[in-house]
């Protein structure tokens, strides 16, 4: 039976969003990026913004996000995506503008761009993938690496005396007057995926309503960097990451604006 025959018989119970193309993804099996790409694609489609979206990709594992989601993309230098997004949104105010960044890009080298774009109340959304590690370069310590966690550059575990503390940049973002909606989500279960999708939709809508900047953190797995099976990585994330990075809405002033 061909694909077309199945579709004709009305047996399709699920299909991937049309914005997500057929290019094989370079992400490791079990990585959270694929799910988040799907959610972002679905939300853009459902909002009818396919022809009005300008996305900014980071340096890191998601550098090639532009290969998978069929909207216009700008590929930024490491950490600079919020600066690109700020200018793009101000020059094209009726476009949906968002960045898609990892923790090294957003919370380390791009901290200044992140904080200031958010605090200028730029009408953009930042999708923040936090897997507590530098994935693309081979698993080095990130600003978000948990204490005790082993990486290629803290092989004996992160220690305060050597490396300082993991950075809760999302908590910082929630204190900024420029932010409208700041939330921390995950995509490790169906229920979590559904919540994360609603969060992305809310953030995108607020940005189009001119309510200020929005940050959606997705606490994610990096099973390659963590050196765990996908299943074990999900379990480890639940047991260790969520304790430090609580899944919750940290701020939502959209209704007041």
């Amino acid at each position, binding site marked *: 039976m061909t694909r077309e025959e199945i579709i004709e018989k009305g047996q399709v119970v699920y299909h991937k969003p049309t914005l997500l193309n057929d290019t094989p993804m370079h992400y490791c099996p079990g990585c959270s990026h694929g799910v988040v790409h799907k959610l972002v694609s679905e939300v853009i489609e459902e909002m009818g913004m*396919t*022809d*009005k*979206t*300008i996305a*900014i990709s980071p340096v890191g594992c998601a*550098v090639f996000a*532009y290969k998978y989601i*069929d*909207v*216009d*993309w*700008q*590929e*930024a*230098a490491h950490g*600079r995506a919020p*600066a*690109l*997004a*700020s*200018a*793009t949104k*101000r*020059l*094209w105010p009726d*476009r*949906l503008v968002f960045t898609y960044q990892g923790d090294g890009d957003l919370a380390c080298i791009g901290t*200044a*761009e992140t904080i*200031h774009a958010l605090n200028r109340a730029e009408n953009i959304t930042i999708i923040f993938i936090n897997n507590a590690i530098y994935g693309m370069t081979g698993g080095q310590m990130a600003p978000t690496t948990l204490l005790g966690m082993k990486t290629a550059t803290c092989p004996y575990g992160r220690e305060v005396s050597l490396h300082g503390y993991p950075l809760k940049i999302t908590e910082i973002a929630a204190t900024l007057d420029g932010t409208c909606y700041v939330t921390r989500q995950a995509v490790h279960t169906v229920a979590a995926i559904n919540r994360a999708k609603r969060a992305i939709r809310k953030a995108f809508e607020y940005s189009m309503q001119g309510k200020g900047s929005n940050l959606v953190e997705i606490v994610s797995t990096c099973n390659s960097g963590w050196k765990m099976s996908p299943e074990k990585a999900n379990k480890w994330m639940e047991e260790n990451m969520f304790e430090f990075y609580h899944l919750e809405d940290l701020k939502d002033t959209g209704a007041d604006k």
Partner: protein
Amino acid sequence: MADQEITLMKGNEAIAHAAIRCGCDGYFGYPITPQSEVLETLAAEKPWETTGMVVLQAESEVSSINMVYGGASTGKRVMTSSSSPGVSLMQEGISYMAGAELPALIVDVMRGGPGLGTIQPSQSDYFQACKGGGHGDYHLIVLAPASVQEMADFVDLAFTLAFRYRNPAMILADGAIGQMMEKVVLPPFKPRRTEEEIIKECPWATTGRVGGRKPNIITSLELRSEEMEVINLRIQAKYREIEEKEVRFEEFMLDDADYAIVAFGSAARIAKKSIEIARSQGIKVGLLRPITLWPFPTKEVQKLAGQVKGILSLEINAGQMVEDIRLAVEGRVPVRHFGRLGGIIPDPDEVVEALKRSF
């Protein structure tokens, strides 16, 4: 309102007024002496209420240039301005823009370095502007104004060249040109391009997939070496075309000259006075003033080498452009350099002395 206007103002102010008048869509900058009047003038003029131009003070030069990267990616006419230490911070973004082939304007009002250096005028960023500056094989189109009038005129010219070749362009001025007041004829108002015009003129731009077209991607990344070499060769071919078509220069009293001074920007103005003094003493000297520093007027310098007995490169630096002159001259006549450093502007008399000493 639409007419040209004759007025008296600083070079930095002329940049700001010319930007508003030539249909610039966005300015993104960070304060630094001696060019802060660009952003201050724009803020005072409030062009967002008249032409709709966006003006934004960024958190750093790093951010400014990346805002320019984002804005240019959408096909808009966007610019930034800074001075030497700030432009050093921008080199990453400039390299990315050259790699992604983005048109934009960067104004560098040079001050003395290295490091934090001084706030007085200098031309010591010739190498940085003309030889790439950031990483990778690339060039900016570099225009060197020698008057407040040229500060105004080169804004539209730089945008025109940048969009013609999809390459960032730089106005390389110095603190003297930025700060001094002169009579200037501001250009007549030109409207900003409409969304339809931008989409038509820049089919590569990330404007959103208007009309359901295929996605546009702005990137400087290509991990496959074979593909990256093809991209580099295409960019290099573009540079050869720019070298062929866009060289600009001024000649002054060269017809009967036995010696030539080559100088740009402020130094070229000093050279004209020095030439007057030298000629009153019976020394026949003329001036070649490169207006485009890249592409460099190599052929014109080669021609000079067949005419004069010696060439003096007058620069407000330790000797940078002199290397390009020597490459062009290929040893046929002596080429010497004279310059002052640290923010000191050479005196016309000491240039004449340097000329006598050199040849």
